């Protein structure tokens, strides 16, 4: 029991490393606030492209893109980009590598969610909107996409939570987000308390979101 407190919940060490970990937490938060909107926008664009185009080959290309990046572990993608770029003569900053990797990976996931949402809106909606004189683009923007988004809101939130958790892989390329900072602190104090503290901070950040997601899912099931 003593060993557990000494090594996992060492308050003296908690106090010492807390300011550093807090800075890491901020990095995690703004990194999420950077990559989630990029993923949402590019995912929606892909979904619209895939569902609205009349060109069969374009539809096919979108499906291939999505399956390709769904088959690729995000960490592998990140490492390929980060360690591969110098061999191409590119000097890619860490943040750029992380943003590109996340965009490729997240756009495919978010586009699958948006596609399901768009397909859940009955075809009559588009016809009715067009018959009131809206252009196709206006109908998508004001009629179809808002309904589609509402229908898949729980999945969008769920995906967003996954992305926040995924920012931990940025630690592998030494971007100083929460996990990275905690591991650096651990090797300085030679005690795993900082990692446990980081886990508690992740829990504090994400548990409310997970609870919110559960409620959203429950409500959307009740509506059906």
């Amino acid at each position, binding site marked *: 029991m003593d060993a557990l407190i000494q090594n996992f919940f060492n308050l003296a060490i908690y106090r010492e490393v807390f300011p550093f970990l807090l800075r890491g937490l901020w990095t995690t938060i703004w990194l999420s606030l950077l990559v989630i909107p990029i993923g949402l926008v590019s995912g929606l664009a892909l979904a619209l492209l895939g569902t609205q185009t009349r060109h069969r080959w374009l539809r096919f290309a979108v499906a291939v893109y999505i399956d390709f990046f769904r*088959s690729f572990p995000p960490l592998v993608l990140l490492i390929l980009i980060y360690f591969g770029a110098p061999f191409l*003569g590119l000097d890619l900053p860490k943040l750029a590598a992380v943003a590109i990797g996340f965009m490729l990976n997240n756009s495919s996931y978010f586009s699958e969610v948006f596609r399901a949402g768009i397909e859940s809106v009955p075809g009559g909606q588009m016809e009715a909107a067009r018959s009131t004189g809206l252009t196709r683009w206006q109908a998508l923007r004001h009629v179809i996409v808002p309904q589609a988004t509402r229908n898949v809101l729980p999945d969008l939130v769920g995906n967003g939570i996954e992305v926040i958790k*995924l920012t931990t892989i940025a630690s592998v390329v030494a971007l100083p987000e929460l996990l990275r900072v905690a591991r650096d602190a651990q090797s300085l104090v030679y005690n795993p308390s900082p990692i446990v503290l980081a886990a508690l901070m992740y829990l504090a950040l994400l548990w409310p979101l997970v609870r919110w997601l559960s409620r959203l899912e429950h409500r959307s099931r009740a509506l059906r």
Partner: protein
Amino acid sequence: MGDTPVGLDQFVFTFLNAEVAALYWRDIARGMGVTALLSAAVVAAGLALGLALAVLRSLQVRALGWAVIAFADILRALPPLVIIIVFFFAFPFIDLSMSAFTATWLALTLVLAAYAEESIWAGILALPPGQTEAARSTGLSWWQTTLSVILPQALRLAVPPLTNRIISVTKNTALGSVVALSEILNVSQSATSNAGNPTPLMLGAGAYLLLFIPVVLFARWLETRWQWKR
């Protein structure tokens, strides 16, 4: 490296170098074996544990229900990489050392179990209560009802979310590279730094596609085939 990039020859020499590939492909094939074995072990144990937890929750014992919910919440809130690192780097300090394989397997199994429990539980909730009542009124016991009436239907409902979760959790086996588990990513990374050439990384990427594209396509097929007809 390359001062002025890059002709096609240069690109091929750098990223698809046959000599380097010949040197390291065996290592990467072994890594593929580790990834496949780990994935299979995670899926089997994770689904079994998730199913057991969902059944436990449906016993309607309040304390048990809370325990299952807390487990599922925590395991869904923590990033898997954090769990792996806690198991591998923190547990030895309290005399609970485990190998990189065990740490990765255990972490991913617990995560998959949490999601599986939620999906199966949602499937159970989606069934009309008349199902249980009708089954019980024919004289089936609670266990018989659960096993032969409720679970078969609930599992069918849980298939689409489960397939997605299985894909993402098996891809997370790559996280094992962080604790030096010799799966595909780790093997191809160390080969890349030994060779001073990224060809092994490209081979590793190819190995993942080889392993996971069939899984993604199979999941798509399963989802359309098992779709609930309303």
